[in-house]
């Protein structure tokens, strides 16, 4: 069953065609990578799916439901979570408080103004558990803006998953990371997305081929190829457009 499906998505920014007739299919439980050269429209496709933009044409289906034009908060409540290419944490709040926002959202505590948050033991316990799982328990009380780059990226990725989504959308989670940090991030992603569906935009081919069960290649706003990693590696059109330059 397809957990996520886009039908003939076309999107343009006042005349600039960014996506053209994109039909993406993501099966429940798979790890799906979207690759493609810069400017191929990967992030725009993400933004259309996660509710940042309403597509100019076409529909998006999530768990069989038409979610075209839904607002981000609604999609999160339906079970979608996303991270950002440029780190987008709550920089003046601590790592703990950042994760806690996700836990609150997951528990549906959104407009409560009658209880003291610090005294909600169960929320605190669950947040600490998440921090431990992502190896940030040592930085519990450090403001997110003061974390090292690798740690703040880990936080960024984990925030997308703190609401316990069924579908996790990660936009270049390892962007700007060192080899070592990338290795840790991949392990983290593998661990956290156990039993979930993952859609990931990635430039690092080592990450893509070690993580993904399926790959979609986006080129100039259209899908060039979609299939298992081995098929993509062998595809001549993909080699010409993208992989050829990357010495795979």
């Amino acid at each position: 069953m397809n957990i996520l499906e886009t039908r003939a998505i076309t999107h343009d920014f006042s005349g600039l065609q960014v996506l053209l007739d994109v039909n993406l299919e993501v099966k429940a439980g798979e790890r799906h990578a979207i690759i493609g050269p810069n400017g191929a429209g990967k992030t725009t496709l993400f933004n259309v799916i996660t509710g940042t933009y309403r597509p100019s044409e076409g529909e998006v289906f999530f768990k069989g439901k038409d979610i075209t034009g839904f607002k981000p908060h609604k999609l999160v409540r339906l079970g979608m979570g996303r991270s950002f290419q440029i780190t987008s944490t709550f920089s003046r709040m601590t790592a703990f408080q950042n994760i806690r926002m996700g836990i609150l959202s997951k528990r549906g505590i959104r407009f409560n103004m009658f209880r003291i948050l610090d005294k909600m033991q169960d929320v605190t316990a669950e947040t600490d558990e998440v921090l431990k799982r992502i190896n940030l328990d040592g930085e519990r009380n450090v403001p997110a803006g003061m974390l090292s780059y690798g740690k703040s990226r880990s936080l960024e990725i984990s925030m997308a998953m703190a609401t316990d989504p069924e579908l996790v959308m990660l936009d270049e989670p390892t962007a700007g990371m060192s080899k070592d940090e990338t290795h840790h991030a991949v392990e983290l992603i593998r661990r956290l997305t156990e039993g979930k569906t993952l859609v990931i935009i990635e430039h690092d081919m080592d990450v893509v081929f070690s993580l993904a069960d399926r790959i979609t290649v986006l080129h100039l706003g259209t899908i060039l190829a979609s299939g298992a990693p081995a098929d993509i590696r062998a595809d001549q059109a993909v080699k010409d457009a993208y992989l050829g330059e990357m010495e795979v």
Partner: protein
Amino acid sequence: MNKTQKWILWAVLLTILALYPIVFGIYYSNVFVTFAIFALFAVTLNLLLGYTGLLSFGHAMFFGTGGYGTAIALEHIEGLPLLPAVLIGVLAAVALALILCPIMVRVSGTAFAMLHLAFGQLMYVLALKLRVITGGEDGVGGFPIPPFSIPGILSIDMTNPLNFYYFAIAVLGLSIWFIWYFTKTPLGSVMVSVRDNDNRVAYMGFMVPQTKAIIYVLAAAFAGVAGSIYALFQNLIAAGDGFHILVSFAPIMMVMVGGIGSFFGPIMGAAIFGIIEELTSRYTERVELVMGLILILVIMFAPLGFLGFLRYIKERWFGKRPDMTTTEDVA
């Protein structure tokens, strides 16, 4: 701090507040009531500015509306008890906030500030021009101040300044306590994250405009409380006291001088302003001149305000790192 210490601290604070007018006399009690009114007013502005990151140049409109609401109600409704009169002022401020919030929650930054400037000035002009209702430049004054009464049990005369002091301090103190409590709740924490990154808040599953609307209405309601008590205290509310642009700027300056973002900063700022006003007005009428100078000095040398400055000194001289767990309070 453990529970016993907390209770002792509260007891000491309440005793000081109770004995204050007896020790310092009525004149200084009135100075203190003025301070408390502006402390609450500044705290409500800080809810927007320090906690949610929204700068308003027209916060006076809620203060003024609260004041006019109470004053006009007492002028026209005979035998209206005290607390319902305050409540009418608050509801008037809430009504204004509800009318404005569909626009205001969708803008931020300069647009938010300038729209408030515009609506603030509009309210000022309305108060001047709608003479039949607002009394024009003279304002609404000399309305009866009802006693604080619980029917059949007690009735306390509020024209007695000592009684009014206790009433005002109780209402203002409870309001400040309620806002403090609010900042500690889950919704309070959503508010802080809206300030840090409103886009991400939506991607965590929270409704940003709705959250902002609640905070906005709450800030307006308590600004209305401050305005209402002010009108009762002066037995007068005029456009110049309620809606003037300087009334909008006063809490901004108090927040800046006291310490932006920290909860108690604005209260400190209101105290500093109260003291300066009291001292300078003995020598000159140009109180604003001194205030302006102090604001310039604060912005140049202590951009985090008085509390930020204290924190800096503590760190510098006693080598104590600021507590990381309270960073949500530091803007």
